[in-house]
C-alpha cells in the first residue's frame, strides 16, 4: 500500500505533512480510546457519548471545519476528510455514525443560519464535546418523503408548542438537544417547515423507545414523542419556513462524510480479508493463491480507489465553495456508490472468510451487518438516484 505522501498536495493526494500528523493522532485515538471498548458498547447497545465526545472535543476533533468563535478550528476540509477516514476504520460503525451526527448532521445548519445566542448556547458546547446532539427528521410515516412530515410547531406568543413523533433518531436516548424539522405553518408540502433546536429536558419530550437493530448496535436509536412541548421561538434556526431547504443543504456534508467513512471501512475490510486468505490454507495452499480470490479482491480495491477519488473531488468542491447544485450532484453520487460498494465488499469478504466470517467474534461479521445501513440511512439509494436524475435534467418534458 502506498503510504508515501507526495511533496506537493494535489487533487489525487491532497494531504500535507500537517494533515498526516493529524491522521496519526486520530488513528492513535481510534486504536486506544475506541477500539478496545467497542465490543462492550455493541453488547450494551449504546456508547458513552458524553465521555467520548468530551475527549474528542478537547482534542479539537469535533469542530474542525467550524469557526473558532464557536469551538471550531477553522480547518480546511481535508482535516474533516481525515477524521472520517480514520473513524471509518473503527471496529464498530455505530461510533463514527454518532460522531457524524454530532459534527455533520445536527450542527451544519445551526452554524450557518443560527442566531449568535443559539450558536453560543448549543453549537459551541456540541463542538467542544460538552453536549451531545441529534438530528430529528424521519417520522413513522415519513422517511424518504421528507416533505410529508407531520410534526407540528404551533406559535403561541414567543413559544412554539410542538406535537408529533420522530423515528430512528441516532443518539436519541442520550442527546442534550435535537435539531428538529417540524411544520410551522399549514399545508403538506416542503414549504412551511422550520428547523428548531429543542433541548431534551423540555417538558413533553419523551424517549418512547430504544430500538433494536440489525447492525450499528453500539449506536442508540430512538423513537421520540413530543407532547405539548413549549420551545422559545428564538430557538428556531434561521427563517421560518426555510427548514426544508436548510435540511437539504445540511444533508450534503452528511452524505460526503458518510461516503468517506464508508470507503475507509471498506478498504480496511478488504485488506483484512487479504491478510486472512494469505494465512488460511485449503487444498495445500493459501486461499489467496486462487486467482478467483485475488481477482475479486483486486476488483474491489479498484472500486475503492475510484470511490476515494470521487470523495476527494467532492471535498475539493466544498473547499472551493462550488455552486450548491454541483456539490449536491457529486455528494449524492458519492453516497449512492459507497452504499453499493460496501454491500459488495461485505458480501465478498465474508464469503472468503468462510465459516469464520459467520462467527460473531470475526470483525467481518459485524461489518456485514453494519455496512447495510449506508444504502438506506441519510437518504436511500433510490433517493440519491432521484436527485441525480433531477440535477441531470432527466425529468420528462
Amino acid at each position, binding site marked *: 500500500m*502506498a*503510504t*508515501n505522501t507526495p511533496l506537493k498536495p494535489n487533487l489525487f493526494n491532497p494531504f*500535507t*505533512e*500537517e494533515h498526516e*500528523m*493529524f491522521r*496519526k*493522532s486520530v488513528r*492513535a*485515538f481510534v486504536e486506544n480510546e475506541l477500539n478496545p471498548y467497542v465490543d462492550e458498547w455493541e453488547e450494551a447497545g449504546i456508547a458513552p457519548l458524553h465521555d467520548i465526545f468530551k475527549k474528542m472535543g*478537547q*482534542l*479539537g*476533533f469535533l469542530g*474542525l471545519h467550524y469557526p473558532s468563535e464557536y469551538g471550531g*478550528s477553522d*480547518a480546511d476540509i481535508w*482535516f474533516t476528510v481525515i477524521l472520517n477516514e480514520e473513524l471509518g476504520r473503527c471496529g464498530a460503525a455505530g461510533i463514527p455514525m454518532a460522531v457524524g451526527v454530532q459534527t455533520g448532521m445536527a450542527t451544519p445548519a445551526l452554524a450557518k443560519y443560527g442566531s449568535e445566542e443559539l450558536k453560543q448556547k448549543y453549537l459551541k458546547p456540541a463542538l467542544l464535546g460538552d453536549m451531545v446532539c441529534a438530528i430529528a427528521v424521519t417520522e413513522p410515516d415519513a422517511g424518504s418523503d421528507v416533505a410529508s412530515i407531520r410534526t407540528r410547531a404551533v406559535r403561541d406568543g414567543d413559544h412554539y408548542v410542538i406535537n408529533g413523533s420522530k423515528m430512528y433518531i441516532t443518539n436519541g436516548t442520550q442527546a442534550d438537544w435535537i435539531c428538529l424539522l417540524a411544520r410551522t405553518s399549514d399545508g403538506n408540502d416542503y414549504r412551511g417547515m422550520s428547523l428548531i433546536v429543542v433541548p431534551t429536558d423540555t417538558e413533553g419530550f419523551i424517549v418512547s423507545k430504544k430500538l433494536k437493530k440489525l447492525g450499528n448496535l453500539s449506536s442508540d436509536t430512538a423513537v421520540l414523542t413530543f407532547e405539548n412541548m413549549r420551545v422559545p421561538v428564538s430557538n428556531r434556526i434561521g427563517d421560518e419556513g426555510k427548514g426544508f431547504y436548510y435540511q437539504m443543504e445540511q444533508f450534503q456534508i452528511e452524505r460526503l462524510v458518510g461516503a468517506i467513512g464508508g470507503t475507509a471501512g471498506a478498504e480496511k475490510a478488504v485488506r483484512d480479508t487479504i491478510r486472512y486468505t494469505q494465512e488460511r490454507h485449503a487444498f495445500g495452499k493459501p486461499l489467496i493463491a486462487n486467482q478467483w480470490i485475488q481477482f475479486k479482491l483486486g476488483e474491489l480495491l479498484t472500486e475503492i480507489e475510484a470511490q476515494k477519488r470521487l470523495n476527494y473531488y467532492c471535498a475539493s468542491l466544498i473547499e472551493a465553495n462550488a455552486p450548491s447544485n454541483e456539490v449536491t450532484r457529486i455528494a449524492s453520487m458519492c453516497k449512492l456508490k459507497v452504499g453499493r460498494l460496501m454491500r459488495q465488499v461485505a458480501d465478498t469478504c465474508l464469503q472468503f472468510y468462510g465459516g469464520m466470517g459467520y462467527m460473531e467474534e470475526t470483525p467481518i461479521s459485524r461489518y456485514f451487518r453494519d455496512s447495510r445501513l449506508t444504502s438506506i440511512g441519510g437518504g436511500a439509494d433510490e433517493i440519491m438516484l432521484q436527485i441525480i436524475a433531477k440535477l441531470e435534467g432527466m425529468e420528462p418534458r
Partner: protein
Amino acid sequence: MHIVTFTRSTPDTTAKVEVNGKGEVTWGDAATVVNPWDEYSLEEAIVQAKNVGGKATVIAIGTEMHNEALKHSLAMGLDAAVRVWSDGLDVTDSLHWATAAAAAVNKVGDVGLVIFGKESVDTGTDQHIYQTARKLGWTMLSYVAKILELDAANKTIKVEKVLEGGKQVLTAKLPAVISVMKGINEPRYPSFIGIRKASKAEIPVWSLSDLGVTLPAASTQLVGYSNLPVQEVVTEIIDGATPQEKAEKLVEKLLEAKVL
C-alpha cells in the same frame, strides 16, 4: 526552572524491521513514530514544567528523520524543540551520545530536571541515560513510577521508584536526571491546535561546535547488523482423553523444555 527531555523517531512497533542486502536496517514504507517509551517522559515534562511554572524543551540527537518525533512532541505541548547533529557523531556509541546530550542540556541553561523514557524501542539501550547523568555530574534516579514532589524553590525532588516486588521513595537534590516508567501518566494525543503550531515550527539544529564540544574517539564500533537466524517452528498436537490429561502432558513437556 527548565525541564529537558529527549526523544527520537523509531520504526512503528508493528513494522517488520530487517537487515537488507546492503547490511542496512530497513522497515519498508512503514511509518516512524515517536519512541513509545518517550510518550511518558514527554507527557511528564509538560506536566512538571507547568507545575513549577517553567519551560519544557525536547531534544533529539540525530539526522533529520528525528524531526518527526520533535514535531510530535511540540504537537503534544512541549514548549521548544532542538535537534543536535553534526557529521561524525556516532549515535550508536552511548558515550558519544551522552557527551552531546550533556552539552546540549548545558546550552539550554537553568535546567533543573532531565526526564528520559525508560529506553528506546529500536536499540533497546538505556545506558546513554546513566552516562548523560554522569557527564552532567547530576543525581540519577531510574525507573521512576511517580514524581511525588518537585520543589523548584528548594531544589529538591521526591520520587517513587519501582523495585522488584516493591516500591522505594527517594528524595534528591536538583538538578537531577530521571528515567520514567510506562504508567507514570497517560500521554495525551496531539490536539488539532498543537499540530497546527508544531507544523509551523522551525526546529533549530545545534552542531557540536555550537555546543562547544569535541568528541572523544567513539569507545565502541559498530561492525554490522544481521538478521536473526530463521528458527524452525515445530508444531505438536497434544493428545489426551480429557482436558486434564492434555493439560498434564502439556505441563510435562514444558518442564522438559525448561520453559517452566
